[in-house]
Every structure is written in C-alpha cells, then in structure tokens.
C-alpha cells in the first residue's frame, strides 16, 4: 500500500515535498506516484525550522522547535531532526536513514545520556517527542507496497481533491486503512484519515496553509488530530531553505553528539 507515513514524515523532515503537477484523470497509482515524486523532483535537499504545537484534550499546550536538515544520497532520503526548544529536550536529535528494501534506520541521540540509541521494533510506534506523531510516522517507505483504490473525487476545505483509499499495510503497521484527499492540481495532500487495526478512525491529518516559496507551493501548516484521545499536534514551517547541501557527517550516527 502507499506508505502514507511519507506524507507526514516528509513534512516534518523538511516541509517541502509537494508542488504543482498537472495531469487529467489519472489512476490511483498515478496520483500517489506523482504526489510522492514531487518530493523527488527539484527539491533534493533543504533546511527548515518548524514549530510543533501539541495540545491535549484539556487545551493545555506544549511547544517544541525543530531544526530539520534533509537531502538525498544515491536516491535514498536522509534526515536529521534536532530539537531546539524546550530546554529539557534541547539537543535531542533524530536521524532517519532510508534503506533500499528495508525499514528506515532511526537513531536518537539523547544529550543527557551522551548516547545514541537505535530505535527498533515496537519502539517505533512510540510518540515522537510527546506529539501525536510516532517515530514510524517519520519513515519514508516504499510507495509501491499495498493496495490503492481511487474513489469519487470530493471537495475538502473548498479544494477539489482526488480521494484515494489505501489498505494492506505491513504486519507491523498500526494502521489498517488510510484515506487520502489529494489536491487535483497541486497534488498536495489536503486531508488524510488514519484507521486503526479495528477499523476505527484514529487520526486526521489536515493541511491548514499552503504558501509559495521560490515558485513552489509548499504546505506550511498542518494539524494531526487524534480523534480517539482528543489531542492534536500542529506543525508550522517558520523558515525554509531549498537546495542546501550538507556534508555526509551531518547524517552519520557517530557525529550526532557533536
């Protein structure tokens, strides 16, 4: 099935993934392929600063600030996500390395322990720094796996969208089905619904704001709402720089401490 985590992951890890793509009445496979390809065309690397605002069901808020650096090497995505605020998590750094045919490698450096830990197994379903995102949500997986079915087009938030239903997730996935509403001309995800293994709606990811940067349309604000717990996490792109090149050392687990 479509690795819908990519949609979240690419936003957090850079925030640049999708731009205008013109096509008439494509298939579900085409739509997904094009949407994913946008992240691979033109924007190979970049740096962004994000704000993550987490709100619980009672309305209490926590805020995190993130510096994200991302590029591609040999066609595989590399991301380094460093927490800048608040002070108690400052310096915590997540490294994601896409693997061909394998799940992403994830390493988390914790400055308090001066140690880099590999995130494996069930730990990937843990909350990403207290947000509604999980570490698994950060992954950029193979978009060709699973079953994609195109449903009747719909209008969401006043935008004409393709609707794609995806099923057949991996055995280790926490979702059984994901529905996507993708902008018909921008090929940007406007809304995504995530269903748990029992078929119940668990999360809704909605695009709140799309802006133009260097003639590219990018999502600059999105909200992931957990409808079961009532909490939600909103991500804001405060700044973004395309085309930045990084040395390999940025994406090496041995150098996360320095």
């Amino acid at each position, binding site marked *: 099935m479509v690795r819908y985590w990519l949609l979240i992951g690419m936003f957090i890890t850079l925030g640049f993934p999708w731009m205008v793509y013109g096509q008439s009445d494509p298939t579900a496979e085409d739509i997904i392929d094009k949407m994913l390809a946008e992240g691979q065309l033109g924007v190979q690397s970049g740096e962004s600063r994000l704000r993550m605002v987490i709100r619980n069901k009672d309305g209490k808020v926590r805020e995190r600030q993130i510096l994200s650096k991302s590029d591609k090497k040999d066609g595989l995505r590399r991301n380094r996500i460093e927490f800048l605020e608040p002070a108690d998590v400052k310096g915590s750094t997540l490294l994601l390395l896409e693997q061909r045919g394998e799940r992403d490698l994830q390493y988390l450096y914790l400055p308090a322990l001066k140690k880099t830990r590999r995130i494996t197994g*069930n730990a990937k379903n843990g909350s990403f720094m207290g947000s509604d995102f999980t570490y698994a949500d950060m992954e950029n997986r193979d978009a060709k796996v699973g079953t994609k079915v195109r449903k009747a087009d719909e209008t969401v938030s006043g935008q004409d969208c393709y609707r794609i239903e995806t099923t057949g997730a991996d055995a280790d996935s926490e979702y059984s089905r994901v529905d996507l509403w993708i902008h018909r001309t921008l090929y940007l995800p406007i809304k995504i619904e995530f269903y748990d293994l029992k078929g119940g709606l668990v999360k809704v990811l909605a695009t709140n704001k799309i802006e133009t940067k260097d*003639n590219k349309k990018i999502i600059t604000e999105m909200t992931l709402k957990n409808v079961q717990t009532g909490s939600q996490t909103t991500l804001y792109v405060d700044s973004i720089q395309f085309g930045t090149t990084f040395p390999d050392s940025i994406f090496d687990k041995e150098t996360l401490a320095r």
Partner: protein
Amino acid sequence: MKLFERPTSSGRIGFAAGSNRVCGWVQIARWVAVCISATCIVGWVGSIILGQSVPLIRNAFADVDPDTLLIVDDANNSISGPAPFVGSFWFRGKLTSEFAVDTEFAGEPESVFRSNQRLWLSAEAELAEDLKAQVSGRLSWQTWISQETNARYTLYPELRDSWLSWSGVPWLPISVGYQTWSFGASDFFAPTDQINPRDYRDGIGASLETTKVPVLGVNVDFLPLAPTFRLSVAWIPFFEPDRVFLFGDDFGLFGPGTSPPPSAAFSGMSELSQRLSPVLVEALQPIFLGTDKSDESPGASTVGVKMSSTLGDVDISLHYLFGWDRTPVFRVDPALTTLFAVMSPGATLTPEVIGLFTDIQSGKLNPFGLFSSSYERLHLVGADVTFPIWEFGLRLEAAYQPSKVLYTREFTSISRPTLVGIMGIDYSWGTTFMASVELSYRRIFDFPAKTSIYLGEIDELRLAGLFTLRLFDFDALEIQLGAMAGLLRLEVVLLPQVAYRFTDAHRIALGARIFDGLNNTLAALYDDNDELFVAYEWSF
C-alpha cells in the same frame, strides 16, 4: 567553622568546611529548609531574569478544525528563508536539587542527610557552516550531615563537555576539547565504554548524566570509507582517573556505612574516618588517592578505535582501546597493616607497633612510603551488535581484557584476563511503557585457587533493568524502577522513583535507593546506605 582550600581527588579546586555542633533531626530539618529555600529563591530569581514565569502551563489556543481551515497563499516567497548561513547561538541551563535521608543509622558518624545542588550551564554556537563550538560547566554544592556532630559541604566548579567541532573536510569531521565518548551498546554494564572516567562519589544509584566525566581529547571520524562503513579514532593525551571517595562519605569504599571492611589490614580505615574530624579526613583522602599517574607524554596517552557498519538491519561495531586500567594496583607495606590494625576495636599496642611509631617519629620510617599505588596499561577489544527482532530491540556486546586489575579479599592487587558478555533487550509500548533489560556474564581466567576476589567472583551473572511507566497527558507522571541483581550470589540494588513533570521546565521526583546482598558483594558494601530522596529539576 574552618574553611580551607584543597585539591580534591579529581584535581578540581574545592572548598570544604567542617563544624562541631549538635546535630539531630532539628538540625537536619534546618538544613533541608535552608536548601529548599535557597533552591526556590535561585529558581524564582532565575525565572524572572530569564523572563519565564515558573508555572509554564499555558492556556489553550483557539480550537483548530482540521476540516475547514485551509489558506492558499499565492504570493511568492511569503515564507522567510534563512540566509545561506546564519550563525546561531544557544544557551541552556539546568538546576538540580536533591535531598536524601539515610533510613538506616548504622553508625553515629554516618551521614543521615545529604544534599546535592547542581547548576549546569551550556552554550553552543554554530560559528560557520562547518564549525561548531560548545562550552559547558557545572557548579556543585554538596552537603553532608552526620547524626552525631558534623556538617560538611563542598562547593566546586567543573568544566564539562567543551569542544570545537570542524567538518571542513566532509568525510573527516574532527572535534577537539573535553568530550564524552560512547563505545559499546550496553547501557548498564558498559564493559567496552572505558574511555571516559566515572564519578562514583554519588554512589551506584547516581544518574548516567552525572557519572561519566568528559576528558580532553581529539576525535576524528573517517566516513564513509565504504558506503556504510566508518572509522572513529579518539586520542586522549592525558590520563584522568575515576573519582571516588575512599572515606569521609557513606558511598566511599571505606565509608562509615560500608560493611564489612575488605580485610583486617584495612579495617582501621573505616575506624579512621570515624575518629578524625571530617575536615582532616577530607585532607587525608588525596594522600591515599595519590596514585602514581602516568607521565604526560604522548607515549602515555590513550587511543580508542571504533569501526562500525550497518549491514541491512544490523548495526555492528568493533572496538579497540589502548589506555589505562583505572583500578589502581596497590602495594602495601606490612608495617602499614600493623599500624592500621591498632585502630581496630580492641586492638592493643604491641612492642612492634610502638617500634614502628618510634621509627616514624625519628624519621627512619616514612609513613607515606608504606602505601603506594599505580595504574597499569589497558588493552581492550570489544564488539557489539544491535538489531530488531520482532517487537524488540536486541543488543549484544562482548569485551575482552587480557589483563584486568582486580583485588583479592586480602586487598592485594592481581591482574588477570577477563571476558564480559552482555545481552540486552529493549521493548516499548508507545511511550506509556518502556523496558530495557541486560544480562551480563563475566569470567575471570587463570585466577589463583583458594583466592577470593574482593566484591566479586570468578564467574558473575548479573541482571539489570530499567522499567518506565508514563501516565497522564504529556507523559507528566513517570513511575520508574531501576534494578540490578546478582544471580549467582544474591545482591540487589533497587532504585524506584516517581516523578511528576509540571511543565517542560519543572520536574519533581521522589525515590529511594535500596541495597542488599550477601557478604562481599557490591550491594552489601552499601547495605547500610538505604536512603529516600526528593529531587527537583528546573530546565531553562
């Protein structure tokens, strides 16, 4: 009250004070009140200076309906992007306050209350795209109060991780300065992780953040020599020993609460700490810790090499360390044994002892020459593997030392080949529950028959774990149990803790440190040091 400057065992400049006054529970309560008040005042003033109100839970923002809110802005470049390079500067700090009360009053000189106040400050700057710097330090104020008479404190500044990192050659990043290295995959036993010295003065229940001491060195990473292969080299020019208390503290090797003394020869050590003024004990300690260090020449430096690779889903590392065994080799003159034996309860002055004292008084015998110690070279090879298996993360590590310094129960030093194997398993259920368990097996080879190891056995099988349960929104409540158990010889260390994080910045914890074990085990050494503690942490 006396106040004097002294070099501590770590080489830091510290200040110690002692006073003789009646000290009971009222006195302890006073100290607790003073410490808590001081901490609150510092925290309050600091929060005002830094412009933060202490209760940082903020009101909710307006509800966002994901289905209806969508703004499409067609104006180009409406997002501010950073310049090609914008230098950045970060400052952060942390104040930790801990107050601990001993629950077992094994002896009058034993500390029944101790407090630990630490201020961590760190500044980090990106000076250029390929140049980064960090300076960090720590100020510690520690207080001990014994049940009988004495209150002591130390105040010392300490340089922590402070380095300059340069990646001008993209495949050869270099960092220079006070650094912390991490070798091996083990979290609890860490047999391969021996580049940095440890600070054992807070006892074996101290946090990992406190225990590892940064040292001056150079780190070079060669990456990648092959697509997934990297080589890291650490060079530490100067030797830095572990930091321990011999006596004068409950967690010292010969502290008033430790039991039993390792041998008759040194039974007087703990007597010594009970009979002398704490100020004098503080002053004496560096003499006994004055282990001969290696000279500070390049030939005496430490080199660590780590080769690591990722093959599919498996992380593999190989390590080699050429450094110094931080367990000193002791050489004890029989005369010193005789002198110490006099301090044991019920001992009498024999003509032999009187003769020794006469020789010392006349200058024929140098008392400081009766005891000497030195460090030996260390060779260590290690390997570790990390990979996922089903829902678990598995960590395997092995370390071999051809010559490791150990102590016999007669307190003589002996060096023997030692092999340690670790198997660790990690499991998480979201962030609600996390468990990390390690099984450690240590084997000492060629150990002399009918000889016993001090605080250990030839074969050791130990289990350690950390279990964390997080509840409420933002994982505010954290219930944690750290544990270590000897499986071949009964010994148990339990470190339960309940913590509540009011905000991202403020956290309070209540916990205990519990030690129990058979004779000649590490846990038994601190059997009388069970304590309850309350800790507060403010991050800014």
